[in-house]
């Protein structure tokens, strides 16, 4: 256990500086987004009101009020979220390959550590999970501040106020932040399963190199097929035999099966086959 925690801490610190940069960019970009979008709405409103001689309430009637949705749908928000997502997806690969590249072959030292090698695999997965959840927490922390800044800039007549909860319910954000904790666990559980499938595929490549790429792709295909099996059967052979709730449980079971498969195969590869 202690070895595992040490490994997690080690992996965490290796990415921490870049992670802080990511947090910084998100903070600055989103805050500027709030200010720019709010100001431009307000300025545009003032301009049109002067040109067309409208009162504030007439303007709102004709052009509609502004809500936080205008901001959270803007490139400022979508961009930062996409940036964080892409960075972490790249890091899912880089967290392994960085051990093999560079002057001194670090993987050699890592695999020589006197602990179960599976710990390395699990520590890397834990690190990715921590970073992902950290960014979700950051978004949840930023939203109330951003909402407040928005309220300061745009006068009340022009606004439709939304609570943080309502903001997270809207549009794409409800995929990142689902409405209840159970769903949160299911979503991120499925996400982590996907990460572990990629990990195991990477280990295939690291074990068998060129041939391993092929093995890895086949392995991913099989995993996805098992995961989707209940849905595919339901749509084809079984003709909607299962009720929705039953299907959900079957999907969870399929996901657990795939996850267990990923860890088991990953363990075999890292223990016996991986090449330094």
């Amino acid at each position: 256990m202690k070895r595992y925690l040490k490994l997690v801490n080690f992996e965490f610190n290796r990415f921490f500086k870049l992670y802080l940069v990511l947090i910084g960019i998100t903070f600055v970009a989103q805050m500027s987004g709030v200010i720019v979008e709010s100001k431009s709405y307000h300025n545009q409103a003032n301009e049109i009101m002067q040109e067309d001689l409208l009162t504030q309430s007439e303007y709102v009637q004709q052009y509609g009020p502004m809500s936080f949705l205008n901001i959270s749908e803007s490139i400022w928000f979508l961009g930062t979220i996409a940036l964080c997502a892409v960075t972490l997806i790249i890091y899912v690969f880089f967290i392994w390959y960085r051990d093999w590249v560079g002057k001194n072959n670090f993987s050699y030292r890592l695999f020589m550590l006197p602990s179960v090698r599976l710990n390395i695999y699990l520590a890397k997965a834990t690190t990715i999970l921590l970073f992902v959840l950290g960014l979700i927490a950051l978004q949840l922390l930023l939203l109330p501040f951003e909402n407040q800044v928005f309220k300061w800039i745009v006068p009340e007549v022009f606004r439709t106020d939304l609570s943080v909860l309502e903001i997270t319910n809207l549009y794409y954000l409800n995929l990142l932040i689902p409405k209840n904790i159970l769903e949160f666990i299911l979503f991120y559980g499925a996400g982590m399963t996907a990460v572990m499938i990629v990990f195991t595929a990477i280990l295939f490549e690291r074990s068998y190199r060129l041939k391993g790429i092929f093995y890895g792709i086949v392995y991913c295909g099989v995993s996805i097929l098992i995961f989707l099996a209940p849905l595919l059967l339901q749509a084809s052979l079984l003709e909607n035999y299962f009720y929705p709730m039953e299907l959900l449980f079957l999907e969870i079971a399929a996901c657990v099966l795939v996850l267990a498969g990923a860890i088991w195969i990953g363990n075999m590869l890292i223990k016996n086959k991986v090449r330094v």
Partner: protein
Amino acid sequence: MKRYWKIVLLSIITLVVIGSFYIQASLAAKDTLQLELEKISGNEDELKGLTIHGDYGTGNLTKNFVHEVNGETILLNNRSVIEELTTDINSHIMKKLIEEHRNFMRGKDLFPDYFFENESLVVYAGVKRDYKFNSIDFSFDIDVLDKKSNEIKSIPLDLPDTETYGWYDVVDVEVVDGQIILLTRSSLVNGGEEVNEYTFDLENQKLLSTEKLISTIRTDNSWTELSVIHDSSIDPEKYILFKTSTLKDVEKDGYFVQEVTGNEVQVYNIETKQLKKIDFPDELVDAIDLSTIIDSTLYVSSRVDSGLELSQYDLEKDEWGEKKAVDLPKYKNGYESMYTNLMNGKIYTAYLTDEGYELYIGDLRTGKSLYEGKIKVSNTSSKTDELYIHLIE
């Protein structure tokens, strides 16, 4: 421990932020919109089992809700993704059938029109559609559940000439004297519609006969619109109504407009297999969608300035009876200001007054009021609100 401060700090912050967000979310979920009914007169027992569907607008956000009277108001937009997939808001009838015959109901299309239930049987008749490159292969999917023995019998039947049909659907299933009767509605590829009747022998699961009840045609500038009107219940029904309106493209001041050139209302007696024309006054034709048949009397409800008017027609004697007025003195006439439904021998109407929505329940046979009450929304923080009711079941 000192070496770990960064990771410990991040973990704690993450846990606290996400944790408190979901605690807040679960608390907020409890205290949302709540619909309440305040009695003005009548008997509150009339409200039992009633469900009200509607929209509630605040500012530029519209919330879609389902309210079970004397129970919870569920905001449909507030459900999570999984809840949306797993909690079906099917009609009461379908829910009850699933609860009682869970295995039989597997893989069925859950439309009341496809089902029939009496003391001893549940019959399902759906249409299977096999999508081909430029046509659809239609076939019947008929299952009969014997309630006592729990035995399920299936009657497979491919429909002939399916390439001539653009669409094929079952509109009603009945069981009369050991025969299953299916009424189907289909549209033809080259225009026009048909209503067909299929009779099956329940004992031997064999097709006995098919009969074309109604067929409409389409010409270059005129066509016929067909409506099939019957209660969406799964209980035995004796009558079904068909309305056919002929429309024509007419040139008026250089524009083409559609004009109704004729209406015909027919009633089909499923037991005696008799199709009869009803002499329908023009002003009631549009109201026919809001009608119901009790015993052998057809009730049609139409909107008038002072509320509603109930017309009744005796299907055996072929004559119109006396009209009854449902006076709703506070009714504010306007766009989408009233929703009416006739079911269970009663009339249910939710209508807008100057002080908000009111609900009226009356007996169709006697025309007497059974319940009147105000529909109120509580638990809302909004200043500007709009309520709109679009279904009572």
